[in-house]
């Protein structure tokens, strides 16, 4: 018999009580109650809501429980309503940078949970379903402060059916048991905390602090990124899916690399609005840049395919708009196969894995692809990868020797395939 003290609802309530109270006392909520929040700050609130709701929507697609999956989808509908309210207010989709920075931190955690630990999403759903319960208290304040004609779809979507939904949600939660330190409790806590920080940045409205790209990745500089909530979520999750596929990323580049993955992906997503020629040239340039930094074109190819799928399926972007990403991915793949067939890479990978089984199981294909990139004229493709992979001090003698053998085998295979031979 289940111990009622460990049901998910009880655990989540207990774990988040203090941060929940802190959120209710954040400066934006206080200003809203006092009638002092500006329209721009309210717009920022809707932008933050759009982003976080979209993140839960996308992450929730990975949930096994169909009831919880439906709650995630309904969260997405609220996010879309927030976006429509924003548009009706005539405000841009880009949150103030400080609020974007704080909300992106947890949006990425939510998306990663979806890919790596979907059961943790119960915590994020709990926060957002719970937020609907207070909507009817806040809506009159919004109307009083900004006028009855202020767009209210975000609020009305939350209020409609909320009591029944809460009952159903709690019933769904009852099927879960959580430890006090479960990933779900941690994610719920993080969501409350980061949401509070994002809302604190809205009143007083912080001055623009760097670019949107720097809000995603402080080291990114000032380049263009997408900021519309669902596109930003699509960009981020495409990068994270690549991250999950290739443990090499985490092992070599760590958290800094992951931030670059997100900001690069948000830039690549903006390219779909450019002409095909311009987008393809820029992606080709990026491929060269990354290849020289230990990221063979295979990685960008994978990311472009994921991004295409996310934009088509999650953002529902017309295929004609996002097809350029597939074309760029196909070009990278075709160029690689000119020098090294897929079958050869599979053979090399199998041989390597048998000789050196370890956590970095993905690296054989990367080394092989780097050899193909080298044949394609990227002179730094191999040394930028093997300088790390074949480092004895880091990975041990046996692994280093296996990488060296793999490199020799890949070059030999490429020599027999590539019309240009291997250029060293």
């Amino acid at each position, binding site marked *: 018999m289940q111990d009622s003290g460990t049901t998910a609802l009880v655990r989540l309530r207990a774990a988040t009580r203090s941060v929940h109270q802190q959120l209710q006392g954040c400066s934006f909520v206080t200003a809203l109650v006092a009638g002092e929040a500006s329209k721009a700050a309210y717009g920022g609130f809707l932008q933050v809501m759009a982003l976080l709701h979209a993140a839960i929507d996308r992450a929730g697609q990975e949930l096994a429980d169909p009831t919880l999956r439906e709650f995630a989808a309904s969260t997405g509908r609220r996010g879309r309503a927030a976006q429509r309210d924003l548009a009706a207010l005539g405000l841009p989709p880009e949150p103030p940078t400080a609020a974007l920075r704080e909300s992106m931190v947890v949006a990425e955690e939510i998306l990663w949970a979806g890919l790596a630990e979907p059961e943790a999403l119960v915590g994020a759903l709990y926060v957002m379903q719970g937020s609907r319960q207070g909507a009817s208290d806040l809506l009159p304040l919004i109307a009083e402060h900004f006028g009855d004609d202020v767009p209210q779809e975000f609020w009305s979507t939350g209020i409609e059916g909320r009591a029944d939904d809460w009952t159903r949600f709690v019933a769904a939660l009852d099927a879960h048991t959580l430890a006090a330190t479960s990933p779900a409790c941690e994610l719920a806590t993080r969501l409350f905390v980061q949401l509070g920080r994002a809302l604190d940045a809205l009143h007083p409205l912080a001055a623009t602090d760097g670019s949107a790209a720097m809000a995603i990745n402080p080291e990114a500089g000032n380049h263009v990124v997408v900021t519309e909530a669902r596109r930003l979520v699509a960009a981020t999750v495409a990068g994270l899916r690549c991250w999950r596929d290739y443990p090499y990323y985490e092992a070599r580049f760590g958290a800094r690399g992951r931030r670059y993955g997100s900001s690069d992906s948000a830039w690549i997503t*903006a390219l779909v*609005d*450019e002409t095909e020629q*311009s987008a393809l*040239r820029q992606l080709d340039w990026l491929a060269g840049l990354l290849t020289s930094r230990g990221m063979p074109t295979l990685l960008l190819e994978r990311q472009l395919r994921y991004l295409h799928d996310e934009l088509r399926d999650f953002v529902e972007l017309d295929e004609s708009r996002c097809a350029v990403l597939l074309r760029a991915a196909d070009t990278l793949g075709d160029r690689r196969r000119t020098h090294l067939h897929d079958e050869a890479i599979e053979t090399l990978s199998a041989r390597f894995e048998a000789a050196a089984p370890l956590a970095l199981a993905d690296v054989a294909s990367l080394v092989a692809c780097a050899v193909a990139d080298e044949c394609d004229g990227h002179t730094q493709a191999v040394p*930028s990868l093997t300088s790390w992979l074949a480092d004895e001090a880091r990975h041990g003698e046996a692994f280093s020797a296996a990488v060296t053998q793999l490199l020799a085998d890949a070059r030999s295979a490429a020599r027999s395939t590539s019309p240009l031979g291997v250029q060293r």
Partner: protein
Amino acid sequence: MITPDLYQRYQQRLLAGDRRACGEIVQQLLDDGIGLEELYLDLFQTALYEVGSLWERNRISVAVEHTATAITEALMSLAYPRLFQVRRIGRTAVVTCATGELHQVGARMVADSLEMRGWDAHFLGSNTPLPDLLRYVDDTKPELLAISMSISSSLPRLQQSIPQIRSAQQDLTIAIGGQAFRLIGEDPFADQPKVHVLSAMSDLLTLVA
């Protein structure tokens, strides 16, 4: 005359961050009477293009790239005593970078090249906010606005800016160029009157001749 040997020596010192040695090379060239355009295009520009290429291929760090750029900007000022002796011709240009663009050395070379031809070139540097640029242009009434863009990702912002500039200044000639257009390819402003995307400094000088 910039021989291959001299260029290699300069480039090697530039990548080593040796400002003094680079300065001596440039000062010797000026003392020998080198043309300023030759100095700018065949030494400064060529060397920085190579620096950019080395950074792209991860052969040098971004710190080395920044050092080389800073040294080059400092060395350009060695040419100013001669630059300022050029007789003014009463033509005015404003030279700036695209909004968000942080690489200003190309724009500075454009401003100096116009000065070499007697123009009064107002160089605004990197990342000038659009409202301030519009006010500046309104105050100075230039016949040419030159905008430099080094990073292709600045294009969307520039595409938003051009109609606003045009709306405020209907007769102004706008010239746009920079390394970003290596990647952008086709002219994104082809349908805009009096907006010229130029692929080389010589194209700009032909445009304003």
